[in-house]
């Protein structure tokens, strides 16, 4: 604020300050050169004055003109004068001007040496700071030679702020005066271990720059830098150090080995960043890059890390960023070719999840899985738990469950019954056996339609031949399923031999589709009468019971059955906990569709399977892309698809624009493609709200709130037109009025730098901070994003309250748009009515009587004609609008009282007869009374 004050005072002393100059230039677009030449003349005059403030102001303006390309070298000496000022304010301007305008051939630089030396040793760290900053821009070999020692001393200054700057500027000094390097180097090296991170990073910067020029000399610092690299968390410093090592490693090959570990750590940090970076637009590209790294990666740990990252990135927020699931399946399939990974289970669960939840992808997924089964021998190299063979679990299940999509089911069935399968882990074999049975059912169905019945029998024979291998399995689950199914097939074969059609019945064994269930689906099912869901069925288990040891089931997670005593009341906490647990359970269960914006659909009221939402996919990409490593092709396809879409969009836009040519539509800048522009190949469910083409005019709403008591009158000013609406005045002690203004931004642009200013009258003045001039505006202490309102309070000093007041004011502000900003001004009037100085004060009738008896009050009266309202409404209106309280009311007569902020008593006697109201009033201040009565009259004339 204080700065404002001074600017205000300078305003009146000088012709122009910097702001005026800038404004002037902007207003003289036509004859800019002429305007500036008059300004330069003025500046020359100002520079001739003795007053340093005037000079500094002139120099500041010159700095601006210099940027615009005008020659200001003639003022170099004046700049030095301002630099030498003892006041920081001017010194700062002087040094800024010098750093902008001086260069090596500026001759006055010679004159500055002593001044700079003095500033460098100033007790004020900011004096030293500006000197160092300035010096960094115009240091010459002479200055470097003369000041090297001073700067070197500053490298050990007590303030890190100075040390940091001194260290950095040493680099400039070394360049200009290389002899200084040798004596300064030990101290510089010391700064690498400075306790302040800023100084440390400055030292790293300087040494890295030096080392780049001559790496050999800095090899001895490698251990120190290595330590810094492993301990520092500052990315800026890390990047510099890594660059330095890049220069050092060719000279010392042993360094390379040492660097592997810390660098890998850094890479991991980078990978974490990726997670947050992906969008629909760049996902494919990023994953493609990661896949390249996967191929190149040495060491399984790093490769596994990449693998989990890829899956994390793709599956985050419910596959939010995947626009093409075929691509994703291909990526998963490609990942199965990694040898020695420990994340087979993760890949498998992703395959299952996608195949189940994305219906349209099933045919494609099944085809891919069939290929995997066929080539299972490639995957069985790694038999350990969680090895890549886990994906066969998913493959077998998907092929079995969705076998209707298989192109060649017999081949897949055969693949699933190969002897080699018996070497797979038990739980996978079990799935194989079960799904072989499902496949068998599908195959039979296909074959029975044919005239040749031997094919079906052959299939049965295949089952009977191969299954005994599994019956012998050491794994109980496998054994049990295998023997059960073997017997079933034998029975089927018998029937087949009697030419009985069995396919229908066999398929019935596996009928029913497994559908994903929406998380809220259960809610649609009405609770049967008489069922209390909160009641305990069994006694609850004891707390100590451990659930960790539950064996992992394959097809369904068994719910542990608890028994608890009958509880009719369950506390909120418990309910919340259970809800949370259930959510967790659902989140982990692939058969649930999780709540996500993309799956929001209109639910219909009728419950039923048809209405359970399944992710619907609209395929606009051909389903088959031949060849195995396919994800790249998808990237290409996706690119083409987007291009096509974009082209279509452009066409549409063009059309739109044509249609709009008649309106005032603003032409939209077609900037880079944004995230929203990309529609996924599979399913689009983004609701876009059309924004109105034409921005509304800015509306700023003022209103005035009373802080202490009720209301009075409110006046609001709208821009561009004035309108009256509710507003309240506010009163505090005798001469102060606090006005609360609510600023509401009704336009689409950002408003900032608001300045509230009122033209004071003799009687009423806006209170400004001490020292500021009588015409300075007050900065509104906030900014307004579109649609936001906020309140600011302004205090006015009022001398006399007997007359109403109207104050003129302006609000200036900057309207900031996407790519432009304009300075706007808004005029308004502030209306202080006399009633706004009244405060509702209760008064007892005896005190009221005493007041009237005292004889100090002067009387006045007014008659209102044609008032057509009940008496109590009339009174309420006076109370509400004019801050009176009713003292007593007898029939159609009432006495009322109010008090002004300066202690004037106002008494009314209101009588009504028919449509005429007469008000007799008394007050110790007749002018105030007259005005209040006028305002009351006005209130009733409006109704």
């Amino acid at each position, binding site marked *: 604020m204080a700065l404002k004050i001074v600017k205000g005072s300078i305003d009146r002393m000088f012709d122009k300050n910097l702001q005026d100059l800038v404004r002037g230039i902007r207003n003289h677009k036509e004859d800019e050169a002429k305007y500036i030449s008059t300004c330069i003349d003025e500046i020359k005059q100002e520079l001739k004055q003795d007053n340093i403030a005037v000079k500094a102001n002139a120099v500041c303006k010159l700095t601006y003109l210099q940027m615009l390309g005008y020659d200001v070298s003639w003022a170099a000496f004046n700049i030095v004068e301002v630099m030498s000022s003892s006041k920081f304010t001017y010194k700062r301007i002087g040094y800024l001007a010098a750093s902008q305008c001086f260069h090596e051939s500026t001759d006055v630089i010679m004159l500055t040496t002593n001044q700079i030396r003095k500033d460098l040793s100033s007790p004020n760290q900011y004096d030293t700071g500006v000197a160092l900053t300035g010096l960094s*821009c115009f240091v010459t070999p002479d200055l470097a030679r003369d000041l090297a020692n001073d700067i070197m001393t500053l490298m050990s200054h007590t303030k890190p702020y100075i040390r940091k700057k001194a260290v950095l500027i040493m680099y400039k000094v070394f360049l200009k005066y290389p002899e200084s390097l040798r004596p300064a180097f030990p101290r510089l090296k010391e700064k690498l271990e400075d306790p302040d991170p800023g100084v440390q990073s400055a030292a790293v910067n300087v040494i890295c720059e030096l080392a780049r020029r001559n790496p050999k000399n800095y090899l001895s610092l490698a251990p120190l830098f290595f330590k810094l690299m492993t301990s520092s968390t500052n990315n*800026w410093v890390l990047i510099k150090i890594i660059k330095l090592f890049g220069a050092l490693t060719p000279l010392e090959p042993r360094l390379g080995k040492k660097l592997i570990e810390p660098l890998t750590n850094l890479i991991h940090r980078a990978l974490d960043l990726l997670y947050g970076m992906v969008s629909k637009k760049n996902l494919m590209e990023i994953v493609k890059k990661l896949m390249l790294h996967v191929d190149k990666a040495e060491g399984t740990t790093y490769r596994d890390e990449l693998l989990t990252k890829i899956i994390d990135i793709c599956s985050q927020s419910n596959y939010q960023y995947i626009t093409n699931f075929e691509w994703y399946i291909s990526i998963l399939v490609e990942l199965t070719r990694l040898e020695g990974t420990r994340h087979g289970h993760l890949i498998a669960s992703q395959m299952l999840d996608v195949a189940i939840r994305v219906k349209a992808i099933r045919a494609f997924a099944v085809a891919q899985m069939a290929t995997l089964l066929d080539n299972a021998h490639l995957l069985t190299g790694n038999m350990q738990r969680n090895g890549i063979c886990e994906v066969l679990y998913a493959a077998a299940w998907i092929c079995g469950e969705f076998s209707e999509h298989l192109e060649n089911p017999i081949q897949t069935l055969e693949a699933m019954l190969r002897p080699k399968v018996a070497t797979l882990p038990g739980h996978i074999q079990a799935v194989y056996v079960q799904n072989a049975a499902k496949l068998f059912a599908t195959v039979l169905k296909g074959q029975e339609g044919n005239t040749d019945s031997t094919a079906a029998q052959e299939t049965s024979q295949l089952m009977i031949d191969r299954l005994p291998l599994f019956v012998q399995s050491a794994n109980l689950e496998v054994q049990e399923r295998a023997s059960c199914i073997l017997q079933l097939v034998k029975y089927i074969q018998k029937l087949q031999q009697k030419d009985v059609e069995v396919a229908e019945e066999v398929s019935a064994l596996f009928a029913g589709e497994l559908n994903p269930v929406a998380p809220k689906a259960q809610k649609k099912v009405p609770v049967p009468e008489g069922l209390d869901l909160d009641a305990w069925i069994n006694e609850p288990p004891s707390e100590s019971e451990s659930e960790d040891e539950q064996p992992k089931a394959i097809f369904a997670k068994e719910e542990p059955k608890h028994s608890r005593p009958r509880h009719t009341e369950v506390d909120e906490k418990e309910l919340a906990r259970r809800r949370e647990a259930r959510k967790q359970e659902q989140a982990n269960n692939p058969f649930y569709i999780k709540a996500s914006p993309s799956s929001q659909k209109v639910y219909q009221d009728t419950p039923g399977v048809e209405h359970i939402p399944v992710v619907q996919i609209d395929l606009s990409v051909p389903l088959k892309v031949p060849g195995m490593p396919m994800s790249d092709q998808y990237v290409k396809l996706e690119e083409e698809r987007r291009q096509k879409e974009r082209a279509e969009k452009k066409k549409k836009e063009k059309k739109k624009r044509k249609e709009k040519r008649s309106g005032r539509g603003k032409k939209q800048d077609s900037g880079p493609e944004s995230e929203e522009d990309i529609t996924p190949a599979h399913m689009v469910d983004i609701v876009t709200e059309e924004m109105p083409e034409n921005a509304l005019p800015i509306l700023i709403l003022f209103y005035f709130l009373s802080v202490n008591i009720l209301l009075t009158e409110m006046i609001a000013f709208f821009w561009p037109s004035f309108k009256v609406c509710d507003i309240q005045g506010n009163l505090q002690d005798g001469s102060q009025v606090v006005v609360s203004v609510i600023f509401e931004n009704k336009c689409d642009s950002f408003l900032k730098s608001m300045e509230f200013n009122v033209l004071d009258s003799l009687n009423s003045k806006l209170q400004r901070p001490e020292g500021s001039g009588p015409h300075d505006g007050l900065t509104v202490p906030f900014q307004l994003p579109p649609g936001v309102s906020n309140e600011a309070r302004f205090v006015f000093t009022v001398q006399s309250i007997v007359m109403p007041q109207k104050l003129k004011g302006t609000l200036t502000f900057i309207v900031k748009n996407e*790519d432009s900003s304009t300075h706007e001004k808004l005029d308004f009037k502030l209306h202080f009515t006399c009633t706004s100085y009244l405060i509702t004060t209760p008064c007892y009738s005896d005190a009221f009587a005493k007041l009237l008896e005292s004889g100090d009050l002067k009387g006045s009266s007014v008659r209102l004609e044609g008032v057509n309202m009940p008496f109590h409404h009339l009174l309420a209106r006076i109370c509400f609008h004019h801050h009176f309280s009713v003292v007593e009311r007898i029939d159609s007569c009432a006495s009322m009282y109010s008090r002004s902020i300066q202690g004037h008593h106002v008494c009314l006697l209101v009588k009504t007869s028919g449509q005429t109201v007469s008000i007799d009033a008394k007050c110790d201040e007749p002018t105030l009374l007259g005005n209040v009565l006028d305002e009351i009259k006005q209130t009733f004339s409006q109704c």
Partner: protein
Amino acid sequence: MQFMLLFSRQGKLRLQKWYVPLSDKERKKISRDLVQTILARKPKMCSFLEWRDLKIVYKRYASLYFCCAVEDQDNELITLEIIHRYVELLDKYFGSVCELDIIFNFEKAYFILDEFLLGGEAQETSKKNVLKAIEQADLLQEVSMLSSIDGFSWLF
């Protein structure tokens, strides 16, 4: 870094900072050339370009282009990061900064830049520290202004 330029979409220079000594004539030529080159580039084109023996890194924020020239061994990405950090600093200091802020308070924009970069090298990587230093220097400026007001008080 060799220099930094801020210019508007109309090609008006808003701020320039030179970390290498060059004559006014050379500076003018360089900035004119660069402004033309960059303004002619399409929005989707790369933010980096090779220019003479330097690398130019630029980025557009609303109506302003921020452009830096670095040597060919320097990292473009960190330069981009420096630009962004400077914009963040301006934004914090002015509160949602816009071009007008920089035009009307161009000396402040320089002061902020000087606290952030020195001699073309990042001197302070902590946003908090930069702003703290600026605030304190502003405070100092106001104090010295106030004391000078006492001297002018006869004017009022």
